[in-house]
């Protein structure tokens, strides 16, 4: 089976610092893949390397067998790689509808002239987008905030907006950077449900970074553990849970919950 997203021998240097070393990844369609590791291990760097924020110093990245290394972030995103951010990256002067609307950018082709003169193609496509927006808002249960500025929303809802926005780009792989950061246990349970739902409804593969063991163990089918830019263990949750190196490097003497 051809993997949906594969990374081979990716290495990246920030100046003299080797942030990521010989990183390999292979995500199959519809897989939920987890990446764990202590703070500063390079997890977010890996996200940024794959999504094109940085270009890796060495290695190869293939999305559906097409090389995406060196492309611009927006091109990679348009090819089917959606993401959320660790510290919510919402547009603070825009409302919820506009957030989800904007993520349809690459799916439009009416052009600038169409936008200037409000051409028929423009109106049709914008209407199509609005329909989509309403579906997504319903799915993520944020339609009651439709016209509100995102900054006025509760934290959990902001997370959902971010996720709805990422889904609007029609990703094949969804990158979630600590989707439960700063959430209460209540919201956490709801987040698990949402992620499962997204996984079911959109048939996407999910690649997530997480700190909460409960969350990762419950959701992921396959887990990688990263320490100082190197993968020290890889496998299904049970294996990772019992791997002594992982416990030593990352979990320490903490109890598993």
């Amino acid at each position: 089976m051809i993997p949906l997203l594969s990374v081979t021998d990716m290495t990246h240097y920030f100046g003299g610092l080797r942030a990521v070393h010989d990183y390999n990844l292979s995500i199959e369609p519809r897989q939920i893949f987890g990446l764990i590791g202590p703070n500063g291990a390079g997890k977010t760097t890996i996200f940024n390397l794959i999504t094109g924020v940085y270009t890796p110093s060495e290695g190869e990245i293939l999305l559906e067998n097409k090389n995406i290394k060196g492309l611009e972030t927006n091109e990679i995103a348009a090819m089917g790689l959606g993401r959320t951010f660790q510290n919510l990256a919402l547009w603070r002067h825009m409302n919820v509808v506009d957030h989800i609307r904007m993520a349809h950018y690459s799916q439009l082709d009416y052009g600038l002239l169409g936008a200037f003169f409000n051409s028929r193609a423009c109106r049709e496509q914008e209407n199509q987008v609005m329909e989509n927006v309403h579906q997504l808002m319903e799915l993520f249960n944020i339609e009651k905030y439709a016209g509100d500025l995102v900054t006025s929303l509760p934290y959990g809802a902001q997370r959902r907006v971010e996720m709805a926005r990422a889904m609007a780009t029609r990703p094949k792989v969804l990158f979630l950077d600590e989707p439960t950061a700063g959430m209460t246990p209540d919201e956490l349970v709801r987040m698990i449900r949402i992620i499962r739902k997204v996984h079911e409804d959109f048939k996407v593969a999910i690649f997530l970074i997480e700190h909460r063991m409960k969350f990762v163990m419950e959701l992921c089918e396959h887990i990688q553990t990263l320490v100082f830019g190197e993968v020290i263990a890889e496998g299904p949750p049970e294996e990772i849970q019992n791997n002594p190196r992982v416990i030593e490097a990352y979990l320490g003497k903490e109890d598993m919950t």
Partner: protein
Amino acid sequence: MGIVKKFRQMFSTVPMLGWFLGFLTAVLIEYFWGYDYISYYLGLPKIPVLFGALIMLKEPLMIPGALAYDLIVYVIPVLAVAKLTSPVTNQGAALLEKLPLWLSAVLHLICLYAVLHVWAGINDYRVLIVKLSLISIILTVSVNVINGYQGEFSCSHPGFMALGAYVSSILTLMLFTNDKIFGTALLPPALAPYCFPLVLVIGGAAAAIGSLAVAIPSFRTRGDYLAIISLAFMFIVKSAVENLHVIGGARGMGGQPDLAPLPVIFIWTMLCIWIIHNFVTSIFGKALNTVRDDEAAAESMTIKTRKTKMTAFMFGAFWAGIAGGLFAHVLTYINPGMFSINRLAEILAMVYFGGLNSILGSIVGAVSINVLGEALRPLELFKWIIIPLILIFVMIFRPYGLISFTEINTKKLLEAKHKTKQGVSP
């Protein structure tokens, strides 16, 4: 507060059409009786051009007369007609609602134009104020695209304006007039009004191409670079024109045919507002806001940020060029000094006073700063104390300007306003 609320409630049933009718009555009263009767009996030397502001500041003794004039000619007729005709105008507005929105909007604009035309028809001074205000609207709205919607700080608008003004002036001088520099007219002057739009567009395109000189180096990074580079660009354009003796150098360039009467400028202004409104409400235009608020997130959401920034900047410059072309043909004389730091201050004041990220705000800002500037003219130096003071207060109490982050909702603006029946609504 109570009075304001009551007042609002009383006039909440008046549709836009009613207000237009009220103002039309007022300006017609002024047109027919303003000089012969009203101002004569009130002891005013002539019709007060700007609602009596100039007379009041020059001769305080005339204040009661001028105020009475305003009351008789403007306030009472406008309010009375608007209120009394509201049943009729509401029906009219309801009829117009059945038409396509664009047709209804055009009809409303014709009404607006009629009001402006009659009001300005009293004397040439008013015509000039209206023309310059309309040109300022184009400038302000186009600056708002860059400084408001895109959230950068660009200072090069006078430069773009100069490019548009000079290019279009050279074209009209070369093609339609017998000029000392460019020789005899290449085309019959009768064609001039028909070719004028094309000339303006070429001027705008020149400004857009010129803007690349700012955009290419400064959009590689974020931050204050754009402000510095664009400021430099403005001075480069000014110095270049000053040293080009072919086009008049520092002495300027005159003799442009008067191709910009009020209707032409009005149409261009409305066209500008319409196109920019379409742009900023479309996804391609809203992309500017995403770039402003979080560029990394915008990239991840498939938005081509670099392209967005470049096109918006060129777009803004294009309209500045159009405004410059109109400006040159209103004054029929331009010199490089007109497109310098003073103009920049004026434009930025209009944008930040009116409100960022809002076309309506830009219109309000452009008109109010323009009219205020004219009305306070008798104060001479003090004008430059009062206007900045007002700006400071606006910045303190409304940091984003008077009307910020609001879009024009044409449909809502023009709809019929029926009385809300009490007890019926839940």
